[in-house]
């Protein structure tokens, strides 16, 4: 088990290095000249070729790519992701301000996706081919195929503009989070509800479900006591994947709902060709992806007694 953990952690580290190197190369290859941007910001229209060259030399922009990556990596590991070319503030300060917003968005969306998917998946399994089951199946299909900017717009039109229940914009108290949360949760909830439903059905056809009936449990009892624990591993794994994907949704949702999070910052960084900011946000995403997946693997391992006890062997 410990060796397994070390191997997983080593793999995670390798993935982070590979992914940051790749994003570094791509961001660098993107059109635009960092030195020119900085010079323009400092001197306005007065920036000349010499100034640009001087800045490029200072920043080491003319060094070969591997050298620049290692240079960047050394600073990043020490906790320095550079200064945003757009705001001029250290990226760590930007993150300190914005990560809580994004984290709250993902956390709320994750909880909603978790509760909805298990609840609706179970409801469908209880209905078992009935009207509810078919309606939920259709709803999940629609939910998984509607783009979230459209969902956001519809929610705003109905609940903010039409009914006036919640604000349409910004982070101003608890109710202002409801629309962003539901928007970001819709896709993962739809996918996960199907995962729950399909895996429950599979579990109900296994011999241990028949044993559950033989024990005298009702169908609902068999679903909850026998089938539900058996979907833990596929559910946790899929949930982890969906949760990491929610960060992509956050880019759109933060923008639409005027939330000042990492995703909104990323869009601005792209518009402004803020290469430092882009690289910093992408690095954050990489760390998020890899660590969530590592965490999920560990949880899945503890959820299944067969894997849990394997460490003693």
């Amino acid at each position, binding site marked *: 088990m410990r060796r397994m953990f070390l191997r997983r952690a080593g793999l995670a580290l390798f993935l982070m290095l590979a992914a940051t190197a790749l994003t570094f190369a791509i961001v660098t290859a993107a059109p635009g000249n960092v030195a020119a941007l900085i010079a323009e910001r400092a001197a306005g229209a007065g920036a000349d070729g010499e100034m640009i060259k001087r800045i490029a030399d200072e920043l080491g922009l003319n060094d070969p790519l591997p050298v620049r990556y290692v240079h960047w990596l050394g600073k990043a590991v020490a906790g320095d992701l550079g200064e945003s070319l757009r705001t001029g503030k250290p990226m760590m300060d930007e993150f300190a301000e914005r990560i809580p917003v994004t984290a709250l968005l993902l956390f709320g969306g994750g909880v909603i996706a978790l509760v909805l998917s298990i609840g609706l998946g179970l409801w469908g399994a209880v209905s078992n081919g009935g009207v509810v089951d078919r309606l939920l199946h259709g709803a999940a299909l629609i939910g998984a195929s509607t783009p979230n900017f459209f969902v956001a717009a519809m929610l705003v039109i109905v609940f903010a503009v039409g009914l006036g229940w919640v604000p349409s914009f910004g982070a101003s108290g608890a109710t202002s989070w409801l629309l962003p949360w539901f928007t970001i949760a819709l896709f993962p909830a739809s996918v996960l509800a199907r995962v729950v439903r399909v895996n429950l059905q599979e579990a109900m056809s296994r011999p241990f479900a028949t044993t559950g009936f033989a*024990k*005298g449990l009702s169908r609902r009892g068999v679903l909850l006591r026998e089938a539900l*624990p058996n979907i833990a591993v596929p559910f946790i794994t899929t949930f982890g994947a969906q949760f990491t994907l929610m960060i992509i949704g956050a880019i759109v949702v933060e923008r639409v709902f005027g939330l000042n999070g990492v995703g909104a910052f990323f869009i601005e960084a792209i518009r402004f060709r803020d290469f430092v900011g882009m690289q910093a946000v992408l690095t954050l995403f990489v760390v998020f992806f890899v660590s969530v997946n590592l965490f999920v693997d560990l949880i899945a391992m503890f959820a299944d007694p067969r894997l849990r006890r394997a460490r003693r062997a």
Partner: protein
Amino acid sequence: MTTPVYAVENLIIDLYTPTVSVRAVDGASFEIHPGETLAIVGESGSGKTVMTLGPLGLLPEGVAIDMRGTARADGRDLVAMSQSELSAMRGGEFGVIFQDPMSALNPMLKIGPQLAEQARRHAGLSAADARKEAVSLLARTGIPDPADRYDRYPHELSGGMLQRAMIALALAAKPRVLIADEPTTALDATVQAQILALIRQIQKEDGIAVVLITHDIGAVSVLADRVIVLYAGQIAEEGSAIDVLTRPVHPYTKGLLASVPDFRSEISSGTREIPGLPPNQTKVEPGCRFAERCSIAQPSCLARRPTLLPVGDGSVLHRAACPVVLNAQGVAHQ
């Protein structure tokens, strides 16, 4: 004679999958009394399991089922029961052991607590008493160090131990009927004998009725008082184990017994297979289902469905559904 604990009469069960419908049980009747062991034998697909577990609602999900006839237990008809009444019957009157204990026990649940839960629900025990009862059930079924095994998951036990645990689980609610659906098929040969001995011992001690569903003639000879031979959903022959095993009447029973390898003879010389394959049960034909594989079939066999008739002087209800053989015997008697 005692009242039967489980009595099935004129049972017809049709199974529907999205593509085919099958008449799995075609007008079968049987009953079983307290303290008796009834073996139901036949090939795979002959309807043994469907006939026995179908009325209890214990067929896999996803198969639609249409059931007619009656199945009485405790004086009530299971076929006409509501789902919740049926659940109570399953967890009370009947205990079931399945073929493969590795897949029949939930891999995510510990063994002991499931037993305790059954004991609690049935006898209304406290949590502590239920745990004691569960441990003693494990001990009774021959599981060593039962207090330790209580907290184990199925994957931590061997197949034989799991089948013992399965038996303990089936007994936890003190059933009056124990249904063992091919309880030894998935086990090692050395373990099979132990499990059969355990079932026999429990039956002697508790005086419960045991229905043994099997195609293992050896198991039948060890355990059974009475035998039902099922072919394509119809009962071909029934009677005491001795009568059916040593003086089979129906050509199918004879074929079935002849196909059992005898350890004293070479496989090639002593064993004969029944020619042909079991019939397609998607169509309900008149006449004898075995006729097309039968060496003594006559044209009349295909016209009318044979009924079970007493064999010889009709001692202890030895009956067979083969007028051809019975008529020949009748002639011989005169």
